[in-house]
């Protein structure tokens, strides 16, 4: 009782308003210090209530047409639809979306003055920039009414070239949108066409101009590597043009061919016209090199930013913190439960009605199992440059798992895929690691484990799966050992 009453208070009082241009070190460290407390809350031995989310993801599913690689829950309006003011499909959806937000059960203290206001809001899609600003305003109003919204909240919106002009951009800024993620994907007309984008190169340049003209300081360019027919010259050009546009953030996504997409039917990974595994590894390395040379920090596997411009909302995901999710197909992580909403509009409307009638509860109190938490933490932490913070990790899960993880990673520390860092984030040399591993408090000296950039990041799946194996065997001893004993 006491704890559940006090936790939210603690959470309201602690957040220090962060100036946008803090050095990255300071920011990531702050994140991880606070995550310590949180992770422990989720640990199997202490199943207490996690703090309520202070982030919300809003799914705005409308697109002019579906891109060939996309398997997201979207609603294609038709290529002609650049103006959606009067489209009933859009207004109807926004109506249900607001009803969902309003009907959501909130585990907030009764005293409204201690409520946790939202610190980040992310409009993802789909193409959120297709939605008329007045409708975005109604969503933000609903959020404000329900949860509160901090003055300095990060409000991001994914925007696609060809779906907004300066006027629309200005209206969005007035509403509070202060971070734009621009879906450029490529700087080559033929590649934009090949992946079924609804815009051309001209619209890309126009959109960049509009964003800068409207004074959006914090904005990102999204690029996709390993597109069919993409050459290394094209990729270099895309990176160069992106850097020349001077965004504060660049996201580089390596194309995944998903089943059920047009690409899934046409292509297989690594086979012509898709780049080979070696080529696409080279693309990844080229991005890492060029963007680092241009002073972008490679702070997560697919994310780069100028100092202080990390996407705070995405960091919520990578820190395994709770977040609300609203709208078609969106996922929330509330009360330790990951909950996905229906991906079809009619099912979603049913869901909202049921929610209003109290028939579903998307934030059921249930504590996530210890194993799930530890795997999530490992998977998400290793995606970041920060890596696993062993101190908080050990506090939550014990030192034996840390030791076995270090032991399993040792060959890869040696081959340079994994890096061990001390508390001042200085690299620990392999010899020092060997000698400290033989001592009892080895895990005390190693403060962080991270994957190297770019080699370790490139093999992150393998390395994370290896860590999962360690977690697994740490949980249950291999039975053949028992057999030996009998």
């Amino acid at each position, binding site marked *: 009782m006491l704890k559940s009453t006090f936790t939210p208070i603690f959470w309201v009082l602690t957040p220090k308003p962060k100036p946008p241009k803090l050095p990255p070190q300071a920011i990531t460290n702050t994140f991880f210090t606070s995550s310590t407390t949180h992770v422990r809350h989720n640990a199997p031995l202490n199943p207490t209530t996690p703090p309520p989310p202070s982030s919300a*993801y809003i799914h705005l599913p409308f697109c002019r047409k579906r891109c060939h690689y996309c398997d997201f829950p979207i609603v294609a309006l038709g290529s002609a639809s650049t103006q959606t003011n009067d489209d009933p499909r859009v207004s109807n959806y926004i109506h249900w979306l607001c009803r969902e937000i309003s009907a959501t059960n909130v585990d907030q203290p009764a005293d409204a003055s201690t409520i946790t206001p939202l610190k980040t809001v992310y409009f*993802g899609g789909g193409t959120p920039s297709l939605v008329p600003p007045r409708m975005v305003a109604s969503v933000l109003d609903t959020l404000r009414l329900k949860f509160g919204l901090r003055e300095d909240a990060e409000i991001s919106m994914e925007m696609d070239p060809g779906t907004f002009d300066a006027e629309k951009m200005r209206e969005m800024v007035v509403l509070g949108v202060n971070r734009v993620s621009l879906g450029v994907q490529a700087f080559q007309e033929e590649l934009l066409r090949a992946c079924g984008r609804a815009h051309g190169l001209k619209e890309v340049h126009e959109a960049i101009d509009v964003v800068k003209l409207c004074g959006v300081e914090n904005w990102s360019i999204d690029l996709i590597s390993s597109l069919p027919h993409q050459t290394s010259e094209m990729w270099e050009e895309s990176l160069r043009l992106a850097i020349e546009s001077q965004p504060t953030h660049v*996201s*580089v*996504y*390596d*194309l*995944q061919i998903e089943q059920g997409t047009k690409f899934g039917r046409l292509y297989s990974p690594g086979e012509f016209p898709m780049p080979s*595994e*070696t080529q*696409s*590894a080279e693309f*990844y390395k080229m991005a890492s090199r060029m963007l680092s040379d241009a002073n972008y920090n490679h702070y997560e*596997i*697919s994310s780069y930013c100028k100092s202080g411009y990390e996407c705070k909302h*995405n960091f*919520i*995901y*990578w820190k395994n913190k709770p*977040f609300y*999710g609203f709208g078609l*197909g*969106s*996922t929330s*992580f509330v009360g330790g439960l*990951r909950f*996905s909403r229906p991906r079809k509009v009619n099912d979603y409307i049913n869901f909202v009605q049921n929610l209003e009638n109290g028939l579903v509860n998307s934030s059921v109190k249930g504590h996530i199992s210890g194993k799930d938490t530890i*795997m*999530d933490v490992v*998977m*998400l932490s290793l*995606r970041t440059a920060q890596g696993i913070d062993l101190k908080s990790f050990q506090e939550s899960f014990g030192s034996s798992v840390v030791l076995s993880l270090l032991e399993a990673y040792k*060959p*890869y520390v040696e*081959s340079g*895929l994994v890096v061990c860092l001390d508390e001042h984030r200085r690299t620990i040399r392999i010899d020092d690691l060997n000698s400290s591993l033989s001592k009892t408090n080895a895990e005390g000296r190693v403060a962080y484990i991270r994957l190297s950039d770019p080699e370790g*990041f*490139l*093999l*992150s*799946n*393998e*390395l*994370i*799966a*290896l860590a*999962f*194996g360690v977690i*697994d065997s740490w949980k249950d001893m*291999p*039975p*053949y050992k*028992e*057999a*030996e004993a009998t």
Partner: protein
Amino acid sequence: MGYLSKASKTLRQSNYLSLLCNSNFNFNPLTNRITHERFSVTRALLCSQTRQNSTTREKSTIDLSQYPKELVRNFSIIAHVDHGKSTLADRLLELTGTIKKGHGQPQYLDKLQVERERGITVKAQTATMFYKHGVNGDDCSDGKESPKFLLNLIDTPGHVDFSYEVSRSLAACQGVLLVVDAAQGVQAQTVANFYLAFESNLTIVPVINKIDQPTADPDRVKAQLKSMFDLDPSDVLLTSAKTGEGLQQILPAVIERIPAPPGRSDSPLRMLLLDSYYDEYKGVICHVAVVDGVLRKGDKISSAATGQSYEASDIGIMHPELTPTGILLTGQVGYVVSGMRSTKEARVGDTIYHTRSTVEPLPGFKPAKHMVFSGLYPADGSDFEALNHAIERLTCNDASVSIAKETSTALGLGFRCGFLGLLHMDVFHQRLEQEYGAHVISTVPTVPYIFEFHDGSKLEVQNPASLPSNPKHKVTACWEPTVLATIIIPSEYVGPVITLVSERRGQQLEYSFIDSQRVFMKYRLPLREIVVDFYNELKSITSGYASFDYEDSDYQQADMVKLDILLNGQPVDAMATIVHSAKAYRVGRELTEKLKGVLDRQMFEVNIQAAIGSKIIARETISAMRKNVLAKCYGGDITRKRKLLEKQKEGKKRMKRVGSVDIPQEAFHELLKVS
């Protein structure tokens, strides 16, 4: 005890089968009449068959003392695989009313799933039939009561792996039906079986079966039988077990041509142990043939092989299921339940006698000889206990497998198993999977070699890994087991077959024509060379027309070397093989190429090497994996991404690991295919 009760569970299936068969046993005049019409049998047979049925009805009160040995015939059916042995046995059981036509399952005597699927017999079975027959041309129409005969059909395994078991089963017989397919003619196993029977001085009743086939050519087959075995064409019976044609001649021929068993009823008891199996309720059940004397229920009996004593708590005949009779007389064949705990105590070929008497053991007893060895490991390392149980339960029913625990660095804890031969090994694997649901990795089968070192010491090697790669003392000599192989092929395939056999280091001993189209060849072959994939290759180069059989022969000196497989410098013990030095380079290259094909790329470069001692003879490299990254991770993806990675982890878990190299299970299966 706990283990015994577990064993019984798995046997429920076969027990269930017997229940099925028993329930078919109820007398049903309607089916019986249909049977008669279908068979369109002679009046004499009709007459006798009606009597058979009345016998059936009274089966609970079978009085064996009515059957002195003069009225007993013990015979076996021998044939090449698929020549119709099991169907013929079914027909004889139906004809005598022992089972009902159309009710029992086909291949009545083949009780194991593996036997039915492969059309082979692995375990010996016996069945007692009663048949009325007027000797010297009498039939029942003249009003005179014809004597009723007790016929024991002893079904033997047909394959060379079980030749010892076959020889013991034949030792209980005085004659055989030699069944040959009317279209295929004499095949390799026909030859082997003929000689087994001939050398045991058995009366041979030749039967040409499947004469209903459009391609049947009985005259040609008769000529083959004459030229190969000097069997008189006028003695040959023509049948079709499928249509029933000619079946009525068989049992009269059995009674008239095959002599009664020769034993002495006034001598002390001597019984030959034919086979045994484990029953959930009764324990070990032994099939026996009473050679001399009389066995009564409650008698104290002893085994000549083990010296252990038992009490015959239940005895009877297989008619066709266990039918207690309380007594077994000279020449009769039946079962004994005596409180044995495991079939390991029941050695095939053993002599059983009255405990306080002194008898000369029956000749020919040999302990099982293991010719093929392979390592069996749980596919998932954590399943060792499950595999251990499965093997214990299976060996309870198949005592001829030798089992020893062994450890492999690559595969963990497992077993080194010795088998009588290749088929035996295959059948054992199949039964493990089918009857016990075990998933195993089997290492490349090997044969027992003998190595001699410079200091004069000798080492028998059943597992290549146990031979040191760099021994302290130089190897001075090596001996390997050989076989005498019989190959029968249409003459147009002689060329490719000779090429194949010489590649396998074969030495031709005999070459002759069976008739104008078929060639008979005899070879001495190293056993090692036929252990892996020989028969499949032989069949494929002869479009399936070759027939092949072999018998064990002597050890011969050979220049054998140990071939190690190394992954990043670490030897993989489970992949070591012993090969002839002349073939080492080729095999080394094949193995490394195969491995390159099945090993996944890893986070580092993998070197695959084949080595003899410290000399590398073949090498392949798998370059390091370049990229495996999920490049985007939004809130909504977390669960999906984690599942993907967990799946990847599960994949890794199923792999075997040597050093830091992960080896998929398929790698071991693939290596089995390299000779």
